């Protein structure tokens, strides 16, 4: 067992974990925050995407011990004081989700994109989310959702 200290959505968590414990399992099972999902075992689907010190990572491919002393942000951390982030609004307004299983990962990846690029092109958006699979939507409305959020953030 290894002792770790991880800050998730602003709250510090201290825990003793097996060195092999994946970050996604730490978040889902130890912290009981089930918004982050698991869709594969080969780092392909992106359902598990969270931000680790502001960069999107696939939390199924990070050990919990690697997050020691670092900041993690999950889908549960997007809304502030009950107010949705523009990216969450965008997904709802543009019908960017159906079953919702890929959605938390998609939200985190696109949130990180917009933090980097305030005004991404369609190509930028498609490239940014190309590590996140969605079996339901066909991506067109996800692109629109991200564009909606970009506009909203720009005050439009």
């Amino acid at each position, binding site marked *: 067992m290894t002792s770790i200290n991880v800050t998730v959505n602003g709250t510090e968590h201290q825990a003793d974990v*097996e060195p*092999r*414990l994946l970050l996604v*399992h730490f978040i*889902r*099972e130890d912290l*009981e*925050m*089930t*918004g*982050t*999902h*698991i*869709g*594969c*075992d*080969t780092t*392909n*689907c992106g*359902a598990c995407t969270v931000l680790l010190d502001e960069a999107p990572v696939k939390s199924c491919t990070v050990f919990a011990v690697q997050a020691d002393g670092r900041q993690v942000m*999950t*889908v*549960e951390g*997007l*809304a502030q004081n009950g107010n*949705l982030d523009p990216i*969450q609004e965008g*997904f*709802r*307004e543009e*019908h960017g*989700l*159906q*079953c*919702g*299983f*890929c*959605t*938390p990962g998609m*939200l985190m990846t696109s949130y990180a994109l917009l933090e980097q690029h305030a005004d991404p092109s*369609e190509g930028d*958006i*498609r*490239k940014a*989310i*190309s*590590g*996140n*699979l*969605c*079996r*339901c*939507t*066909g*991506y*067109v*409305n*996800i*692109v629109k959702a991200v564009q909606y959020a970009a506009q909203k953030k720009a005050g439009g």
Partner: protein
Amino acid sequence: MTLRTSPEIGGMGHSLKRKEDARFIRGQGKYVDDVKLPGMLYLDIVRSPYAHANIKSINTEKALAVPGVLAVITGETLKEYNLHWMPTLMSDTQMVLPVEKVMYVAQEVAAVVATSRYAAADGVEAVEVEYEPLPVVVDPFKALEPDAPVLRTDKEGKTDNRIFHWEAGDKAATERAFAEADVTVKQDIYLPRILVASMETCGCVADFNATTGKLTIWMTSQAPHAHRTVFALVAGHVGLSEEKIQVIAPDLGGGFGGKVPIYPGYVIAIAATVVTGHPIKWIEDRTENLQADSFARDYHMTAEIAAKKDGTMTGLRIKALADHGYTDAATQPSQFPAGMFSICTGSYDFPQAFAEVDGVYTNKPPGGIAYRCSFRVTEAVHALERMVDILADELSMDPAELRLKNFIKPEAFPYRSILGWEYDSGNYEGALKLALETIGYDDLLKEQVEKRARGELMGIGICSFTEVVGAGPSKHFDILGLKMFDGAEIRVHPTGKATARFGTKSQGQGHETTYAQIIAEELGIPAEHILVEEGDTDTAPYGLGTYASRSTPVAGAAAAIASRKIRDKARKIAAHLLDTNEDDLEWEPGKFSVKGSPTLSKTIQEIAFAAYTNFPEGMEPGLEAVSYYDPPNLTFPFGSYICVVDIDKGTGEVKIRRFLAVDDCGNIINPMIVEGQIHGGLTMGLAPALFEELVYDENGTPLNGNFMDYLLPTAMETPKWETAKTTTPSPHHPLGAKGVGESATVGAPPAIVNAVVDALSHLGVRHIDIPMTPDKVWALLREHGVTE
């Protein structure tokens, strides 16, 4: 369709934002793997490395010594309870855990129960199984050869590997049509084995309470009631009783047909909770999902069309071989072993047709589920729409013109096809003409001529499909005898709000929103005041579930009919309140008013309150209704799709430049959701057309059982879909609606193949089997002398 309700009421035709999204965008969806119960244990499965082998021994000693491992369950354990075999939904049989031999790679061999996921996985590694390999049958054609080993030795008297032989149509008359034809064309077409691979894999949490005898199981189920009944039938003899089985299908991360079968894992988890007395969680990982769940397609077809010189099609003949793997686990409710395959005459007025299908066993996982389509429609449409293009090529006719010439005419509906389907409504030329005009077909043809002159490869492909969705009617459709109806129950509360429950189960289709819209349309109660619940067999009325695009055609109709029953009672109450005659009342969504005196009216909310406080003498209080709807016929949505591709001569990559889908699904409940369904369906049509295929080597070992090599389209490969619509209501559906979720998956692949073949037709290419991967196209280009 004109809107009958205001946006505040939000009935049919409004693009209401989805109710379910509020929880999903906050990460508050509740999927099966999110269920956590006190004392819960984890189950993991030992799987076979052989496609066919006797099990000589299973040694669990080392596994039981692994810290955290509490039990190992084998076929012998289940045999004590006679639970080692179970029926499939096709009344074939399937092993839960084997006692004698395994039949495919990745088959369940034993199960480990432990205190954590990790400990269970460690336990799986430590189980020692000794196998004795047996000869393997992978090729379905070889499976039918006389010297092939008989695989299902468990079936007494079985002397070959044939599951069924099935025919439709008049063979002799079709032969005559071919003999008399001016032209005939013939082509072998293979649709490979694929898997729906919903983003959420399958799994369950099973919890048995020994004191009360109640089993609660949260499971990835598209058909909770049917599954409950199957569990009661399979395990009735060990004390599970249907009223004490509660199946809960929570939020599902996609389904597409993959969550209709009952997988052994569910049954093992049930056995494990009964044996251990603890709740048991089983969640398959992606590799297990891609290697062991039930598969789609795997259809080897030979298709032929007979025609006159002028292009009039006079006969269709298709012979198919279906590889079902080691058991017929098809999840199709029709009484025909090849499902809806006889829809193969499609959108055309064929005077003669004959289809025959043989199903065979091989050493592969169970096959024959759907992949976002009514069973075997995609295969039928693919064969036909390819053949129409091949005939056009043979006759040097424009493929659009050939289609227009042979379409069933709008005035011919209801139309009875030569293979026996009664099409409810259609306007095929309307859809194709709109598609041709919208995409600018003539300009594209000109562009293609210019590009060809420059040596560039550009192709245009058309597909004009007819779908068949919404099973029942119950006289033709059942699951293990359970008739294919569906239920809706609506309760209007005193304050005018309502709760509605259904026997279906959304997997992303947005039922919480669309069913509310149907009720809003019929009762005028705002959709936001209607709570829709599904997926809990303790509370929902019986229904057969959601697949084959049947929710709107069947449960949607039940919602409308239950609403109308409520409206009938509301009319009586309104007459009582307004002190008038029922016949003097007029309905507009949301209120009854006295004819000629519109100020004298009662809203549905006032009526609801009166139903509990001030109802006419002799009337039962309350305002509720239930409807179990058995449709008189299926619905037949249709569409015309046009795809434009450019092919990279250097890499063989197919680039979809444009794709236009013109769909007609009758009257629409929520245009935004319908468009979303079409986008998703198109992407699941693109997937097998260009990327997906499960490949097995000669030992039956899957060569691509994970997302590294089984490629799902990402945002990079998926084009910007274009959509348009025509509206031809279904005459028999109470709302004039038809199903839509699967149309695009059926219609897209032939449009894409036709476009790619068109790009290469001047080289003499007539057909390409899917998936049209870059290496396949590249090899074809080199074969035909095309270099960069």
